[in-house]
């Protein structure tokens, strides 16, 4: 391999690393939907976490979740485990709007004059039900992270997506299989006749 080729690969690798790890390079927290992408059948349910990683001294947070109401509906939201690991909390589940496609004003806070939590974990857990087939993004909006002095904590967002597939089975029906079998037998029969005639 030529030296220029190595150079190109090296530069590409550096750029790829720089972009994929931007949040970590900035030293800020990352708020994300996990898993990033999921697939559920129509009528099925999916549990998505709103996670955070790399956070320092988190005392309270707030966020909205936006989704395609034509494809999925939100059914519930509960508190995640991260903030409550630092003390007692007061959690406000978001308001679910399955017409507009949003879960707005989810909030949680520690109680008392105490330090915030550090590291990574789950802020909240949401459950969705698949409706019509298609792909919808699960976006985070109006995210606010606060430290114990009510200062904002920097962060970046990683949205997610949900794919809803038709619940109708795609495997051939038994009758179809039978007809296919008969057809094959017929073809074999015809082929033998031809050979016999020759």
């Amino acid at each position: 391999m030529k030296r220029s080729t190595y150079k190109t690969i090296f530069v590409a690798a550096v750029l790829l690393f720089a972009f994929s790890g931007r949040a970590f390079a900035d030293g800020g927290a990352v708020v994300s939907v996990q898993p990033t992408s999921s697939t559920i059948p129509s009528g099925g349910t999916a549990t998505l976490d709103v996670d955070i990683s790399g956070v320092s001294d988190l005392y309270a947070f707030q966020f909205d979740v936006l989704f395609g109401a034509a494809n999925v509906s939100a059914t519930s939201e509960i508190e995640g485990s991260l903030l409550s690991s630092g003390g007692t909390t007061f959690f406000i589940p978001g308001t679910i709007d399955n017409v507009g496609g949003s879960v707005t004003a989810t909030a949680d806070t520690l109680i008392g004059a105490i330090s915030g939590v550090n590291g990574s974990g789950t802020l909240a857990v949401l459950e969705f039900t698949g409706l019509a087939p298609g792909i919808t993004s699960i976006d985070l909006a109006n995210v606010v992270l606060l430290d114990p002095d009510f200062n904002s904590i920097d962060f970046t967002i990683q949205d997610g997506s949900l794919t809803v597939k038709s619940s109708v089975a795609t495997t051939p029906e038994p009758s179809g299989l039978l007809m296919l079998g008969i057809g094959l037998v017929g073809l074999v029969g015809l082929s033998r006749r031809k050979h016999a005639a020759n």
Partner: protein
Amino acid sequence: MNSLSHRLVQKSPVRSVGDTPTGPDDARDINRDGKINNLDVEALLTLCGKNCPSLTATTTSLASSAAQVQYTHPFTLTSKVSGNGSQLPTGDVSFVVDGQLDDIGILSSTDQTSVVSNSLSIGSHTISALYSGSLNNAPSSSEPVAVTVVSVPGDVNGDGVVNCLDLDLVKAAFGTKTGQPGFNPNADVNHDGVVNVLDLAFVASQLPAATTCP
């Protein structure tokens, strides 16, 4: 002693604040409002004041332990009555808040009296002390003192304490903005026009650590 002064001293409201007039002609009810109270003492002061014959002039001062106090938190009002006669001022000092009698203190041997208050409403108040006088000392009143009562930080419902009920009120109004249905200006603790996590976190931080709110 002229006749007016004689009548004022013998039948003054000075030592009978709180009594009920014996009738419409009771001289102690100077302003004829059917009550013998500080208003009558003030009227007496207007009529003769420090120059009431045979009475030693007095001076009443008033001091508050704080010019600004939090709602329901106690503060002390201290009044001192000074005279220049051989007879030290004795008797009562009325503490009048916004024109209404709030409390009464009895002068001690140091010619002063103190009362503790924690019942004033949120806002600015004008307080004065009114010495009702004695047989030898003329009544006098202090200069007004201003005391401002402010709400307790995070006390959304104004009951003087921060607890889970305040968090519930923030929760009820959470996400609303000024003018929207459900907006509660008291829950907008930082007065930025929206009830959000800043308000929630502030109220929560005022509760004792480890408090559990359902």
